[in-house]
């Protein structure tokens, strides 16, 4: 699935994902990008190894209660606790990598889109409230309203490509935008662009109309 990905995850995102401290919506973006990007998969392994090295460090090995070993052994012996078996995952030619399909309940054809104007469609995904995640459908050649950010916005391209003031983003590329970036993504001609976007604060739109619509669109 890896194809010429040029924009990768930051150390901060990989470390947060490895440590398990990111909001669910960001975890979903990271897991989806790694599903598409072998380079970041390898980098994640390094961050997991760093976590392993931390628990190996002598000062981290805090003493457990004196009854802990006995209690653990007792639980191991009582083998009646069932162990959940992870479902087999199989590779597919789907547009949505598996982590996203788990949220959507299938591939792109299962997404329930809502029109948000200008031919752009979106589907908000159910995540914790610390950050929000949504799928965006931008018709080839169309533009997303010009906007800035209060927090961090992650945009991962799943199909097609878009360009903004920063660069061009193709399948698997992730754009990490913060307060400083004010941008207007425009989908490339040819293929409709589908993105996964997550943000930990509401976006700031420049035009008046999108700002009025914002509370209704949940973005």
């Amino acid at each position, binding site marked *: 699935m890896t194809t010429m990905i040029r924009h990768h995850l930051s*150390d*901060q995102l990989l*470390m*947060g*994902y*490895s*440590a*398990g*401290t*990111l*909001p*669910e919506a960001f*975890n*979903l973006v990271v*897991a*989806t990008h*790694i*599903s598409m990007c*072998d380079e970041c*998969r390898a980098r*994640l*392994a390094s961050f*997991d*190894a*760093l*976590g*392993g*090295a*931390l*628990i*190996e*460090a002598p000062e*981290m090995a*805090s003493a*457990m*209660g004196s009854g*802990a070993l006995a*209690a*653990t052994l007792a*639980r*191991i012996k009582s083998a009646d*606790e069932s*162990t959940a078996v992870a479902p087999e*995952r*199989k*590779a597919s030619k789907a547009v949505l*990598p*598996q*982590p996203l399909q*788990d*949220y959507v309940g299938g591939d792109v054809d299962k997404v329930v889109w809502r029109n948000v104007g200008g031919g752009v469609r979106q589907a908000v995904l159910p*995540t*914790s409230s*610390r950050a929000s995640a949504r799928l965006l459908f931008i018709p080839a050649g169309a533009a997303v309203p010009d906007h800035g950010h209060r927090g961090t916005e992650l945009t991962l391209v799943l199909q097609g490509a878009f360009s903004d003031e920063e660069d061009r983003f193709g399948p698997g590329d992730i754009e990490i935008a913060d307060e400083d970036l004010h941008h207007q993504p425009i989908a490339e001609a040819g293929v409709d662009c589908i993105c996964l976007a997550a943000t930990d604060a509401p976006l700031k739109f420049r035009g008046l109309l999108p700002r009025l619509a914002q509370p209704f669109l949940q973005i």
Partner: protein
Amino acid sequence: MKSGADAALAEECAQDVMVTVWRKAPQFDATRASVATWIFTIARNRRIDMLRRDRRPEPEELTWGPEAEPDQLDSIVLQQESARLVAAMAELPEKQRIMIERAYFGELSHSEIAEQTGLPLGTIKSRIRLALERLRHTLS
């Protein structure tokens, strides 16, 4: 697992992890990760479950071809690298090492660390960045 959870919860979590390690031991692949790394990932997932933290979806599994024979050499190299990483961690300046520990075990985002320590966010980010650069340099 001194992750802001109280001591009893931490101990229950540690026991859970040991039981899981025991049960899943046959699935452990020494060519892919060190034992400590494997235990770290089990502990992380257990902690997220217990504290009802944000869900953390896993990436899609890689589809390897026919399963290759485990290579003894791979696992030896991996063990050596893990040992070097532990040593490199110990060599880090304390300020940098503490930031890495907090990022992993303090259950805090970088901005939450900033609130808690009163350090500017930029300082925290740069200490972590310097620590990572130093580790990369030592291991390269």
